[in-house]
Structure formats: structure tokens, C-alpha cells
């Protein structure tokens, strides 16, 4: 088990180095003068240029620049945003909870619906339920989610008027942010109707974001379940006279969940890393929208810093998933 952990940790180091190289090289590959790009100014007088050149470290050899850059990263210095003049790292921390809240909610929906759907489809293989469910899953998986989101807005916000169109909470409410999670903060604030407002803003984006993970999880669960149901130990469980529910729910499920957990973990990583499209459509102020806005605004420090932060986040989540997998799979956990 420890060896497993160690080998996974070891793989992270070169990948992280690669990520920093990509981010480091990103600004230098852009067309235009890097000093001007990072400062966000068009023309500047030569003295200021020299000062900035020195400040950014461009007058030093490139290898030294790289190590300075990494050194800065390790100390939490990810640059300063051109548009807001705030440290990139600080902005990331401010905006991350919004994405996290959305991602967690979406994942919750995807798991709660996807896994039972997959199990039932496997157990009732070939039935109308199975075909219908897998058909819906395939459709969800093939859908451009930005379009799906727009469609749902037309239906639920436009025609039915049930949900708001954008944002995290109605502008009526203002309360201090404790956790950054609007649902929790609204409850803590005690203001009437705040929680419902937060929830009503959360639900449509969550459904849209959940669509693809739900489809993938349902399909994965079904195929994992089908494979497990053909195994010898399921036959043994039946031969013991155990109830159908126990054979499926205890013996089969435990084994089927092992590959599914990996899938879920990978999906979380993708979600956390910026539900770019969903956040754009619903004007959800998370890191996805932050990135796309920064790219259009040419706020390159943010893009550079955001790249590293998001990739590091994905890597971290994947590591946690790998560890979890090692814990769950008894073959790995017990030597």
C-alpha cells in the first residue's frame, strides 16, 4: 500500500515540472513583447520599460528566469492580475468556492441518479428500461452542454419563469461570505428567503453541469456491473441462497464500484477545473468564467497563473482518487 502511494507521488513531480514549463513558456510564445504583455500596457516610456524588465526578471538568462518563476510559485506568487491589480492566487481563492459549490452539487446529482440507473440497467439487461436509459445516457453524452444550458434557460426561466437566469443569488441579498458556499452562507446569515434564492440559482447550472458526468457514470456502472455479474463469486453468492438484493447490492456492487470510483474521481477533476461553458452561460462567478474572461481581456498573468493552479488542482484530485482506489481495492490495500 505504501509502495503504491509512493509510486503515485513520484509520478507527480515530472508532470508538475512540465506544467510549470508550459505556463512559463506560454507568455514567451505569445506574439508581442512579454514585458508589455505582462504589464498590460501598449506603449511605455523606455525608463519604465527598463524598470519593469528588471522587475519581471527578463534581463536575466532564461534558465534563471525559470527557476525564479518556480520559486515564486512555491511561495504562492502567481503574478498580479492586470485588470483587477489583485494577486492571481488571491483571486483564485476567492472564486474557487463558487466553482466548488457548483461542481459538488453537479457530482452529487450525477452519482445519485447515475449509479442506480447503471445498476438497474445491468440487472435488467436488454429490457426497455435498459435501452431507454442507455439511449438517454448516450444523448446526454453527445449534447453540446452550452446549448443544453441555453435550452433549459429558455424553458425554465423564459417560458415557465421558475428559475433565475444568472448569478448565484438574487441581488436583494447581501451578507458576509463565510465559507464561500452561497448555500451555506445564506443559511448562516439567517436572512429570510436567502437560502431559497441561493438554491434556485444553483439548481439549473448544476443540472446542466451534471449531464455529462451522469451519462458517463451510468454507462460505466452498467458495464462494470455486467462484468461483475458474470463472475464466479456472484454465482457462489447465489449458491448460498442469498437474496437477490444481497447478491447485487453487497457482492456485486462492491466489486463493480471499484472502477466506477476511478471514473467519478476523474469527472470531479474535470468539473473542478472550471466548468467553463456552464459558468459562462449562467454568469456563474467561478474560476472557469474567470479564465475565459481573462483570455478575452488579455489578462495574461491570470491566464498563466490560472493554468498552473487549475492543472495542479486536477492533479491533486486525481492523486486523491488514486489513493482512494488503492484503499478500496483489497488486492492493493492488503499487500
Amino acid at each position, binding site marked *: 500500500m505504501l509502495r503504491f502511494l509512493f509510486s503515485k507521488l513520484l509520478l507527480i513531480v515530472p508532470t508538475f515540472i512540465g506544467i510549470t514549463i508550459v505556463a512559463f513558456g506560454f507568455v514567451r510564445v505569445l506574439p508581442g513583447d512579454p514585458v508589455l504583455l505582462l504589464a498590460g500596457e501598449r506603449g511605455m516610456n523606455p525608463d519604465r520599460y527598463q524598470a519593469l524588465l528588471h522587475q519581471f526578471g527578463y534581463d536575466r538568462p532564461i534558465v534563471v528566469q525559470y527557476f525564479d518563476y518556480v520559486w515564486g510559485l512555491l511561495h504562492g506568487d502567481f503574478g498580479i492580475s492586470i485588470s483587477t491589480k489583485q494577486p492571481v492566487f488571491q483571486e483564485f481563492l476567492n472564486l474557487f468556492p463558487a466553482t466548488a459549490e457548483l461542481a459538488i452539487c453537479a457530482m452529487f446529482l450525477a452519482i445519485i441518479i447515475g449509479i442506480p440507473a447503471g445498476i438497474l440497467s445491468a440487472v435488467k439487461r436488454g429490457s426497455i428500461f435498459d435501452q431507454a436509459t442507455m439511449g438517454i445516457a448516450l444523448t446526454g453524452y453527445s449534447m453540446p452542454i452550452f446549448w443544453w444550458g441555453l435550452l433549459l434557460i429558455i424553458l425554465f426561466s423564459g417560458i415557465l419563469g421558475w428559475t433565475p437566469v444568472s448569478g448565484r443569488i438574487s441581488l436583494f441579498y447581501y451578507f458576509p461570505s463565510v465559507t464561500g458556499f452561497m448555500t451555506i452562507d445564506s443559511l448562516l446569515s439567517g436572512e429570510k428567503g436567502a437560502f431559497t434564492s441561493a438554491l434556485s440559482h444553483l439548481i439549473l447550472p448544476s443540472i446542466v453541469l451534471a449531464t455529462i458526468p451522469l451519462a458517463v457514470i451510468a454507462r460505466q456502472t452498467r458495464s462494470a456491473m455486467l462484468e461483475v455479474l458474470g463472475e*464466479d*463469486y456472484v454465482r457462489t453468492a447465489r449458491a448460498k441462497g442469498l437474496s437477490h438484493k444481497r447478491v447485487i447490492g453487497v457482492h456485486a456492487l462492491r466489486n463493480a464500484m471499484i472502477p466506477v470510483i476511478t471514473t467519478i474521481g476523474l469527472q470531479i477533476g474535470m468539473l473542478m477545473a472550471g466548468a467553463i461553458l456552464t459558468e459562462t452561460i449562467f454568469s456563474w462567478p467561478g474560476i472557469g468564467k474567470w479564465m475565459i474572461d481573462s483570455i478575452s481581456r488579455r489578462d495574461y498573468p491570470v491566464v498563466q497563473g490560472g493554468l498552473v493552479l487549475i492543472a495542479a488542482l486536477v492533479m491533486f484530485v486525481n492523486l486523491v482518487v488514486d489513493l482512494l482506489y488503492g484503499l478500496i481495492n*483489497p488486492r492493493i490495500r492488503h499487500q
Partner: protein
Amino acid sequence: MDQTMEPLLEVQNLSVSFPTANGETTVLHNASYRIDRSEVLAIVGESGSGKSVAMLAVMGLLPGTARVTADRIAFEGRDLVSMSEKERRKIIGSEISMIFQEPIASLNPCFTAGFQIEEVLKQHTDLDKKGRHKRAVELLEAVGLPNPEDRLKAYPHQMSGGQCQRIMIAIAMACSPKLLIADEPTTALDVTIQKQILELLARLQAETGMAMIMITHDMGVVAETADRVVVQYKGRKMEEADVLSLFENPKHAYTRALLSALPENATGDRLPTIDYSADFTGETL
């Protein structure tokens, strides 16, 4: 020994077929079996003879796509076919139990040996947690596993094939079954372990007086363990006789061919093989 003339397990005209890409394939044609209490019956044949299928059908372990028809499948006189699912499950695992060919694969890799043994006790007995644990230890001792307390905490992938098969036997014996079906229990094991497992099964059978159905392709195993023998080929019964008569005076051409293919029976310098072009199914006894 009680003198009920009724057989323990009676199967009449059992047929099993599966849907395949080329239509429906019948793997068992109208086979009938009978086993009495404390008897050891061997069902012998090559792959494809349908020997496992018959017993899997009795236990209800065939996949849902299988079509099973029979005039009668009765255990202690009670009809298993018309019984409710719930009633059936009271018998399967406790009064009739089964062990299989691949012991490690037959145990759930996510649970300890102890969990899997105590599970069957929980399903069929009233023992409390302590009682189940005690009984599990007793069972492991009975099947010849040293350090039972440690063994109960082990996972299947931490044990050898022989050890896993003993665990399977312990599970099968847990509720004192009247009939144990052993489907090629030693085929996947080393030769030395094979002998030990067979001896264990014989000893348990003698001690408890349970009936045993031994499914095998190995005539040597048949000779050592069985009272009566059923010979199958391509889903049909070719011959049925008590073991001594079968070996000394085989009546069916296929049985003769099987016996003569045994290395022990080699007379010349070439090992006889079974001539499959001969239509064995033409002859029925």
C-alpha cells in the same frame, strides 16, 4: 439409517438450452438423475457433455437466458420447480450446497474468508455473532486449515488455490447439508493438493453421511470416490451403473472408449484415443 425409499434428489427429463447467434442450442437432452441419501454419485464426461449444466440447473444457477424444462426436480419429495423463490432459497445453500472449479475466483475478493463463511450462517441459522464466529472456526478446523483465527481474516488473493477450496468446502458444509455437489473441485489444483481435497471430501462424506454428487472428467477420481456413475456425452446420458460394474464391464461404446483412453489401460506403445467420428449417441441404454 432411516429407510425412506424416496430418493434424496430426483430429476426427470431435464433439458437445458441456450439462445445463440445460430438459434437455440440444446446442451442437455432429457437427462434423468437419482441420488439416495449418503450415496456418492459421479457424473463423468468431457467438456460439452452437459455434466455441470444439469446440477447448475437444479441449483438455479444458470444465467437468465437459459431455458430449463423438466418433468420433475424434487428434493426430499418436494418439487423444486413449482416452489416459490423464497422457499427455494431456504434449501439452496443449507440443505443442498455446491462447490466449484476455480476456488480463488469463486470467493469474493472484497471480503474476508470469515465474512463469507459467517454470511451463509447468518442466512440459514439463528446463531448470533459470537456463535457464528465459533462455528466458522470449527468449520476451518474440520476442513484441515491450521490457524483458523488468522485464516478468517484473510482475503482470497492472499491464499492458495487449495486453501480457497477448503474455505469453499467450509462454506458448503456450514449448515450441515444433506447433499453436496462438487463441480470439478480439483481440476484447477496441483496434483498433490488434488489428492488432499478428495480425501477431505471423502472423509466429510463418511463422517456426516451426506450424499455427494461429484462432477468430473477424470475416471481416476470416479474410481476412488463414487458409488454409482453416470456417463455423459454431448448432453446425453450414455450409461449409468455402479462403479465396479462400470469399470469391469462397460456396456456403452463411449464408456469403453473413455476407459481405454486411460493411460493405466494402455497395452501397446500407442495410447488409444476416442474416435469421435463414431456416433455414440445412436446407442442408448
